[in-house]
C-alpha cells in the first residue's frame, strides 16, 4: 500500500471508529464495531433508528469532533460513511481556517 493510500485510510479510520463506538454506546446497539458496515443505513432500513436516536447521533458526533451538524440536512445522516464524509469536510475547513 502506498503512503498516499495509507494516509487517506488512516484519516477515515480516525473518524469512522469513534462514530461506530459512539453509536453502539449511546444507542445501546447489540453489535461490535466491526459488525457495523460503514454504508449501513442509519434510519428506516438498516439500523432503523428513530428521530430521538437521530438527536443522540448528532450530539455524539458534534461532541466527539467539535463540529456542528445542520438540522436541515438529513442527507448527512444517511449512513456512517456519509456522516464521516461530513466530519472530514468540516475538519478540513477548520484546518484551513487555522
Amino acid at each position, binding site marked *: *500500500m*502506498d503512503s498516499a*493510500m495509507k494516509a*487517506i*485510510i488512516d484519516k*477515515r*479510520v480516525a473518524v469512522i471508529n469513534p462514530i461506530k463506538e459512539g453509536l453502539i454506546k449511546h444507542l445501546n446497539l*447489540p*453489535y461490535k464495531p*466491526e*459488525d*457495523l*458496515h*460503514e*454504508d*449501513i*443505513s442509519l434510519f*428506516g*432500513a*438498516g*439500523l*432503523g433508528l428513530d428521530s430521538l436516536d437521530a438527536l443522540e447521533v448528532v450530539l455524539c458526533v458534534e461532541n466527539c469532533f467539535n463540529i456542528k451538524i445542520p438540522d436541515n440536512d*438529513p*442527507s448527512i445522516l*444517511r*449512513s456512517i*460513511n*456519509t456522516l*464521516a*464524509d461530513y466530519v472530514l469536510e468540516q475538519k478540513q475547513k477548520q484546518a484551513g481556517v487555522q
Partner: protein
Amino acid sequence: MRALPLRDILAHKGAAFQERYGVQVPLAFSDLETEYRLIRDKVGITDFSYMQKFRISADAGLDFLDNLFVGNVAKTRFCRVLHTFLSDPDGNIIADCYVANNDEDFIILCESIVDDQALREVFNKNGAAQAGLQDLTDTHVVISIDGYKAWSVVKELFGTDVLGLPYLSIETYPFEGKNISLLRAGKTSEFGYMIMAPKELGARLIEVLLDKAQKYEGGICGIKVHDALRLEGRFFNIFAEGARVRDPLTLGLQWMIDFDKEAFIGRDPILRKRQKGLANKIIGIKADVSASGFIPGAELFSEGKKVAVVEACCLSHVLDSRLGLAVFPVGIAYAGLKFNLGKFGGPTVESISMPPIVPKSLSVKLDEL
C-alpha cells in the same frame, strides 16, 4: 417455470419477460431510463408477484419462524415488518425476506435465489406442516408502488391514514370487498409500498393503481430497473451482489442478524466466521460512464496488483456515472481510494461512500402533509 397470475395483462402492456430462479418475471416495459425516471421523479407500478409468499398464524408460527430466520421474529411488534434473511446450513444467504407481524398472523415475502420447490423444502424440513405454514405463492399477487409520488397513489386508494405508516410496517385495508395487506417497504430510496392481494383481485388492482399513477404521470415498470435503484440507494440486492457473494458478513448484512439468538439456520457457520474476523468487505465504487468493462466479475487493480472484484453495477442517471459494488480486503475497504479497472493503467475507479444520491423523497415529510 412459474408464470405470474398477471402475465397476460403484463404481456399486453408490452412486458419483456425473463426467467429468474424458476419464475417468469416482467423485466421491462420500455427503455430503462424511462422507467428509472418514473420512479425517481414520479411513481412506478411493478408486479413483484415473483416473490414467494407465505402466511402462518402468530400462535403456531412464532417459534417456527424464529428458528428459520437470522433476525429476531419474536421481537417484531404488531404491525411492523422485520427485514431479515434466510441462510442455508453453511451460512450462505438464500433468501431476502420481509416477515410482517400482521396481528393474528405473520406474512412472509421472500426474494430468493433458489426456486419455489427448493424454498418449500427448506421450510418443510424445518416443520412447516406442523406449524401450519400456508403457501400463498400461487394464490396471491404482490404489486409494488415506488417513487417520489408513491404516497399520493396509496393515499387516494386507502385514505390519508397511510401517510402515518412508518417504514417497515403493515396494515390491512379493504379493496373490492376483500382484505388486502399494505406494506410500507421498498428498496429504491424513494417512497415505497407493497400490496399483497388474492390473485382474483390482481387484474383490478393493477388497473386501479395504474389509473391513479397516471394522474401523477406515473406508469408501469419492470423489475430490471429496480436493480439500478437498489444499488443507488445501497439496498441489498439478492439478485445481484447477493447471488454472487452469498456470505452475509462480507455483504455487510450483520444488521439483519440477531447474534444472541440460540437457533437459526446457518447460525454456527455465521458465528464462526464472525469470530474469526472479516477478511473481505463489499463497498461502493464509481467510474466514468466511458469506463468499458465495468461489469460483474471485472477486476480492480492497485499498483498493478489485483485487489478487488466487481460484484454489481449499474448506470446512475442521477450521477451520470457508473456505480457498483466490489469486494475488497478489509484493510483497503474504504471510500476515497482510486483503483484501475481491468488492468494496471485501466480506467479509474473510485471507492465511494454509499448511498451516493440524495433521493427526492427525502425532502418530503409525510407526517407534516
